[in-house]
């Protein structure tokens, strides 16, 4: 996979799998020996957020910064001042933005902290996710995220999946969708993910299709309580 800038912002439609991708990328970069910070900027969703995985990330030496009331009973979207520090840290700093333009709006207040710095913003898409399955809608969504966050995306991450029903065919077929989105928004595709616990890379090649994108194996971290182990 292409080498990314030190500041990596992950955005997308809520439910597209942003958080799971962000957690995988953080773990991956940490494994390569870099210092890694993961900032949970999601003040919109109360559940299924990267700070849910703080303990695991912590044990791997990944610094997590979360909203003040993340994982509490209160849904006040208070941003801790510590979030400013994420723009100054050594190593990789990942930002898991909340879904949609709503999540992206939160990034707006950090505009000055990021101007003049190099960053990559990854737009995570899922061709099976209702509301962005249509290429036009996926493009619209990106534009509204970009305008709310006052930042520009640099890559597309094709994270198409259907949860338990994901199979090699789902992955292969999604590549065409990703390409269309890529063309529509004029952004390169960084990778296409596949859930490594469910599908082997060979199975995707064995479908007979042509693999046009970099395949990136991901663990499924974001789970419902009854899916654990």
């Amino acid at each position: 996979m292409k080498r990314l800038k030190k500041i990596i912002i992950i955005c997308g439609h809520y439910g597209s799998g942003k958080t799971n991708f962000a957690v995988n990328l953080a773990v991956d970069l940490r494994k390569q020996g870099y210092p890694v910070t993961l900032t949970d900027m999601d003040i919109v969703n109360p559940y299924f957020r990267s700070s849910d995985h703080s303990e695991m990330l912590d044990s791997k030496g990944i610094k997590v910064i979360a909203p003040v009331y993340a994982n509490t009973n209160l849904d006040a979207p208070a941003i801790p001042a510590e979030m400013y520090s994420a723009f100054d840290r050594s190593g990789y700093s990942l930002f898991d933005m909340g879904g949609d333009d709503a999540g992206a709006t939160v990034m707006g207040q950090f505009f000055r902290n990021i101007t003049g710095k190099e960053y990559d913003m990854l737009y995570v898409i899922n061709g099976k996710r209702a509301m962005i399955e249509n290429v036009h809608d996926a493009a619209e969504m990106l534009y509204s995220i970009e305008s709310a966050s006052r930042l520009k995306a640099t890559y597309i991450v094709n994270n198409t999946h259907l949860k338990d029903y994901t199979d090699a065919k789902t992955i292969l077929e999604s590549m065409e969708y990703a390409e269309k989105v890529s063309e529509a928004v004029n952004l390169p595709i960084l990778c296409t993910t596949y859930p490594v616990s469910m599908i082997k890379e060979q199975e995707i090649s064995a479908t007979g299709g042509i693999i046009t994108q970099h395949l990136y194996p991901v663990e499924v971290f974001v789970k419902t309580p009854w899916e654990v182990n």
Partner: protein
Amino acid sequence: MAKVLMKGNEALAEAAIMAGCRHFFGYPITPQTELAAYMAKKMPKIGGVYLQAESEIAAINMVLGASAAGKRAMTSSSSPGISLKSEGISYIAGSDLPAVIVNVQRGGPGLGGIQPSQADYWQATRATGHGDFHLMVYAPSTVQEMTDLVALAFDNADKYRMPVMILSDGMLGQMMEPVELKTANATDCPIEKPWAACGHRNSRPHNVINSLYLTPQALEELVKKRYEKYEVIKKEEQMADEYLTDDADIILVAYGASSRICRTAVNTARKEGIKAGLIRPITLWPYPAKYIEKHIAHAKAFLCVEMSMGQMVDDVRLCVNGRKPVAFYGRTGGIIPAPDEVLNEIRKLTGGVK
């Protein structure tokens, strides 16, 4: 004290005043309006507060405020109004505040009608608002009992720091009976309330009344603690009245107005040689299970009679737990079952009528 003739609603109001209640917040709704009118007339004369709120929602929250300040506070309404109060009741329970809420039930659902009903049993005993909590629920069946239970309701609300409901109905609210008002010297804050938010006077740390807990663990712990208290209440506070149950084959179970009908039906059945008896729950939560348990061995069948499509019968069946048949008879929509209709059901159970 000499007996006087009073309407149920007036008796409730006077009893509350005698129990030390000096803060009443209401909103008119038939058939409980006399209660508010009585308070409006009486409170200014004794230095108390009667305030007509802009809605039932506001009224219950005024109760929350007065109770948070440490005072005995009360509100009353009828079925549709109680639905509106349910938000505030949940907050009162979640903030461990005492309060007395009166429901003079009428027919429902929706606007329903103004005639008496007992169709809010589930609402009172199962879900008077969102979240895990209970109210103590008292069901008077005479005007005299309306007065006696109000005093008890205030005492227990303070003792257990929880909302208590008087679940009455339009018939009891509107009817007159002789009442003996027992003199009481209660004040509006008869017990120490060190938790009250009434100004710390620079002599203690600030008190906070709230129902928000930041971690699910803290919230669970608190709710569990409240449920331990509920267990104590279940053990200590069950109340029921029994009538001719010792040798009864057929045991009727009814509360409030319908228990009055049943008493008449039991008398007639006895004249016909049918051994009928009546258990009349006075507390609906905690449900007086032990009174039913006593008679499961000798009773041949139970008959639950309600002014609803059958709500309390669930609790009777839970108590009897399949050991004996439990039948149900009810009228709804504001219709009061007639003693003859109940008698017919008793006859059916004894095999007298095929």
